[in-house]
């Protein structure tokens, strides 16, 4: 961007003082310097990307390794499950129910056009189990817990609390990261299950109680259409999303000081948290597609 602007200024200057730049040789020279600048910037960009990717990879590896290394402490994990899982239940329950209800409503009118309202149960169940359950649960968890994790760790980094841990010979991975990893990986499938359960109930409520579909038809359609493969896909997605969310959100906070935009002060924390939420959400959607493509 900066280069572009400077280029424009440069060309304006040529327009104003053509004589100054009339010799081809000089013009070419200056062009080359700009090309070099662009290349240099590109190189920086690539290096930064590689460095970040490497750092994130090592972070993931180290965190997972630490899960299996002693000491094993249950209490911090339970506290994190309470924060990431239990405290999210209400939100998940609420969004699940309404997602199911809207699926019921939209599905009913769409299916009615083809005279196949009987398929409503299966339509709701399959879309929830395979796609909407895991994805929306993950997005809700990012918003509720992911952002909080990133900000919390980022502030710890900023106020030298992580250095203090290192200096007390306490492994920050063991102390901060591991409980969050385990809790997220455990909570996500359970929350997804809750989301699906209430989604199906929501669909039932709209389809059967409000729109007058036969309740036997709703569940019969569901039993016949939703197979184990759907549940399995949902579970795998929930598990992978749990890992992705906690990975991105904790790593972003943990490496706050390495952020190129500058992870300094309150603004650094807020900017990094926003980045983490955006990055986690986008990654979830990309991986949703990838897993679907691989398993279908």
């Amino acid at each position, binding site marked *: 961007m900066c280069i572009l602007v400077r280029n424009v200024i440069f060309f304006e200057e040529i327009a104003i003082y053509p004589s100054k730049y009339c010799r081809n040789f000089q013009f070419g020279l200056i062009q080359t310097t700009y090309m070099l600048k662009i290349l240099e910037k590109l190189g920086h960009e690539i290096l930064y990307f590689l460095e970040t990717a490497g750092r994130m990879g090592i972070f993931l590896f180290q965190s997972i390794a630490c899960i299996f290394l002693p000491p094993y402490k249950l209490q911090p994990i339970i506290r994190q499950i309470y924060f990431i899982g239990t405290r999210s239940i209400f939100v998940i329950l609420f969004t699940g129910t309404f997602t199911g209800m809207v699926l019921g409503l939209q599905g009913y009118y769409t299916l009615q056009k083809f005279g196949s309202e009987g398929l409503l149960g299966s339509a709701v169940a399959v879309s929830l189990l395979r796609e909407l359950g895991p994805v929306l649960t993950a997005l809700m968890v990012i918003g509720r817990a992911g952002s909080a994790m990133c900000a919390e760790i980022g*502030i710890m980094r900023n*106020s*030298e*609390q992580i*250095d203090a841990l290192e*200096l*007390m*010979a306490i492994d920050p991975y063991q102390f901060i990261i591991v409980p969050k990893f385990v809790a997220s990986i455990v909570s996500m499938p359970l929350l997804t299950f809750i989301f699906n359960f209430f989604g199906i109930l929501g669909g039932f409520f709209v389809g059967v109680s409000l729109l007058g579909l036969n309740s036997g038809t709703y569940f019969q359609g569901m039993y016949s259409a939703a197979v184990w493969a759907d549940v399995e896909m949902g579970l795998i997605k929930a598990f992978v999303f749990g890992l992705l969310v906690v990975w991105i959100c904790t790593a972003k906070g943990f490496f706050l000081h390495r952020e190129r935009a500058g992870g300094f002060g309150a603004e650094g924390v807020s900017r990094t948290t926003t980045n983490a939420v955006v990055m986690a959400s986008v990654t979830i959607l990309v991986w949703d597609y990838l897993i679907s493509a691989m398993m279908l």
Partner: protein
Amino acid sequence: MSNVEKEKVVELIHVDKAFGDQIVLEDVNLPIYEGTTTVIVGPSGTGKSVTLKLMMGLMRPDSGQVIAFGHDISNISNKELRKIRMNFGVLFQNVALFDSMNIFDNIALPLRERTDATEDDIRRNVQEKLEMMDLTGADKKFPAQLSGGMLKRAGLARALVLDPRIVFFDEPTTGLDANKSAEIYRLFHHTQSELNYSAVIVSHDVPKIFKLSDFVVLLAEKKLHGCVSPEDFQLSDNPAIRLYVEKNIGPIYSSLIEEAGFYETF
């Protein structure tokens, strides 16, 4: 002071450190002897905190060696570094207590994470440290609810809770009034004679701090000067030290003997 036969606990050898093209330290050598107190003084922004961070292994030098308890920690795995750090206690410039834990849990944390002590032992130990630091009654408060002086004392309690062999203090008294800083130094003096640790103190409190120190080092112009006893420091003919002494203390050197025992009288 017979420092010849004293063991070196930590030592910087030919250390260079730069951030980008800003050179902060150039060919720095600094030994810290067992059981002694070394004070690092110098103008703000010259790299005193960086020197401490190098000694603690929080930063790695660009070249040179950092020897701690016989190991070169500039070139060591995290696991081994952690083992060496079991001997460290640190009071950060900004204290760095865990702000989401109360004072009791903060001080108990190293015990809980690094020892197998029972909860009863931990409570007794922490309570003892709290008493030592005049913090009884503040144990349920959070760091944000304490005054600056109380925070420093809580930080000191946390640094000492595992009986470290060397303690690093980064400006333990900045932001405190004269009374409070004298109190911190009194606590330091008291705990050091009780627990017998080596200490490295970064301080701007000259000449007050000299009474507690065995060695004084001046950091100026990217180099360390001195590492001599406070008397020799004030009488030194090294031009950098002369300049610093004249600026901060004045040319008149007051006898140390007069004021000996100053800190015991509190």
